[in-house]
């Protein structure tokens, strides 16, 4: 997949709340927002202003788009958990309330040119953006399998949809209340073998994305990961949502997950260095420009072919890790 932007520019609109409903441990909000719905590609997100016009909560809350539908001119649905005052306010909205929403934002999941066996791996409400992707992949002749995991049954999102629309659907819960007991990585190798997976799309907590990438890498399977970084604006101006990603030139940069992501090639994200500035990152303290390395053909997540498990020259950061990240690095709070 090339790095050109195929997505259209986002819109900023007043969306009208159609429904807010409880779905087990989560909430699903459906907004009438035709301009956002029309531009949507799977993997993109919306940034929503919360608290009302006089609010003291100034930062937007970002949510991956679960699905869009043509009803009412175009609706957008996203899934969230209550993690703080902003999401609590959202959960209290009712039909006909209006919300300032910007979107769709971010880079969508790249889709392969040729039909492949795609495995969609979701953790918690991270599975929400995968279903629209699954539809799109099936429309292009791909086989879609699902592997969803969460702490408990009420935290798995979309198990029924996965079973209905996927060729196969494997569910794991850490407490064993639904599906197999354990984490998605416990069954990943087995699913990959049985499904003859060519490419993995993953969304969920950062630890899960890292583990999936490492494991898939052993089999030479490319991973497209939708990362979860705290955002303030969602539009690319505040510079808070950065993480270290290796570029095509081999140079690590602190890139914004809202404009350069939220979807990244898993093998290019320096998962272990999230929350630090790797000493070899562009512009890190003491960084000096290196002469360019011998040009390599840029590895791409080609359909149907296995790319060699590229290590992208992972360098261990010598910087002490910064203090533990605030308990949640969630997109919405």
């Amino acid at each position, binding site marked *: 997949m090339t790095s050109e932007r195929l997505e259209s*520019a*986002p819109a*900023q609109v007043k969306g009208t709340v159609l429904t807010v409903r409880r779905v087990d441990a989560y909430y699903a909000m459906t907004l009438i927002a035709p301009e956002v719905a029309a531009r949507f590609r799977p993997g993109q997100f919306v940034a929503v*202003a919360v608290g009302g016009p006089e609010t*003291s*909560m*100034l*930062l*937007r809350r970002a949510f991956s788009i679960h699905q869009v539908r043509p009803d009412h001119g175009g609706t957008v649905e996203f899934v969230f958990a209550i993690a703080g005052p902003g999401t609590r306010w959202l959960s209290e909205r009712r039909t006909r309330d209006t919300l*300032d929403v*910007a979107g769709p934002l971010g880079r969508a999941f790249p889709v392969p040119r040729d039909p492949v066996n795609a495995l969609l791996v979701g953790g918690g409400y991270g599975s929400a953006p995968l279903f629209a992707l699954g539809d799109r992949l099936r429309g292009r002749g791909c086989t879609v399998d699902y592997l969803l995991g969460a702490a408990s049954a009420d935290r798995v999102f979309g198990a029924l949809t996965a079973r209905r629309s996927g060729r196969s659907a494997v569910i794991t819960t850490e407490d064993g209340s639904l599906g197999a007991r354990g984490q998605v990585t416990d069954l990943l190798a087995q699913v990959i073998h049985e499904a003859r997976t060519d490419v993995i799309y993953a969304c969920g907590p950062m630890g899960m994305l890292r583990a999936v990438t490492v494991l898939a890498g052993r089999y030479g399977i490319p991973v497209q990961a939708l990362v979860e*970084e*705290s955002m*303030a*604006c969602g*539009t*690319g*101006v*505040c*510079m*808070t*949502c*950065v*993480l270290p990603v290796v570029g095509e030139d081999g140079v690590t*940069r*602190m890139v914004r997950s809202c*404009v350069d992501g939220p979807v990244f090639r898993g093998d290019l994200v320096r998962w272990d260095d*999230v*929350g*630090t*500035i790797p000493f070899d*990152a*562009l*512009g*890190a*303290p003491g*960084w000096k420009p290196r002469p360019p390395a011998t040009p390599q053909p840029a590895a791409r997540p080609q359909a149907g072919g296995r790319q060699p498990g590229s290590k992208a020259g992972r360098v261990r950061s010598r910087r002490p890790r*910064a*203090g*533990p*990240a*605030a*308990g949640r*690095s969630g997109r919405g*709070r």
Partner: protein
Amino acid sequence: MELPNPILTASGCAGAGRELSQFFDVAKIGAVVTKSVMLAPRSGRPTPRMAETPSGMLNSIGLQGPGIDAFLRRDLPWLLARGARAVVSIAGSTVDEYAELAARLSDASGVTAVEVNISCPNVEDRGQVFACDPGASAAVIEVVRARVRYDIPVFAKLSPDVTDIVAIAGACVAAGADGLSMINTLLGMAIDTTTLRPVLAGVTGGLSGPAIRPVAVRCIWQVHEAFPDIPIIGMGGVRTGRDALELMLAGAATVSVGTAIFHDPSACPRIVRELEEELASRGIERAADVVGLAHEPGRLTGQRRTGSAP
């Protein structure tokens, strides 16, 4: 500065205009004040870099940026091609770095003004922030003013974290600043009561947003009173046209909008409209007529004060 309207983006809140241009025409606001650029590319600080606070936020971005080469090659030409006016913010760790940046900008065409971000640690003086010391501030402003082309105004961006902002302002003016920008952020921090640790990886960060607007108004008031002929770019928690009017009444000739952009990407053109409405409803024809008006009792009457909160 000749601007079509007095509303600018605040440095650090609008990149170099590209992202916001998806939401509105950047040529329609007074100017884009670009994120502070340094000589070399800069990675910024580790995450978490922000925390939401009541009516505001803390940031510890750490001046992440592409460096002056990429800025001049890519960012500035893009802005100018869109017909926007560019006020370029520069930041350095030594006086020499500021001088070099000033010289580089002087060669570039199309720069409306230079805003000198002196809220940076001076590595040659125990990491003391330039803006907290009159002598250090003056040293930077002097070399910048000397190297920037004569027809490009130089604004010194002041920090509120000082005992006497008028003294800093005076030092900058004496060193040749054509104008003053204020205020930068206030130093603050937050502690996460779940993890029991500082929220920011950098521990402390800059506080911005409506919570600091009264500090901005106070600083602008004090500096304008001391230097009524020095143009001020005022900023700090402006969210509406009414807020912009308040800062102008205190003495700001133009107003930058920062944190509000995170809440509302269209904040700047909205505030341009709202300010026009605020002025029109008071029968005021030109925004320039209200600059510093609060210092002159009885000139124009607005709403009668009732003595109770709205």
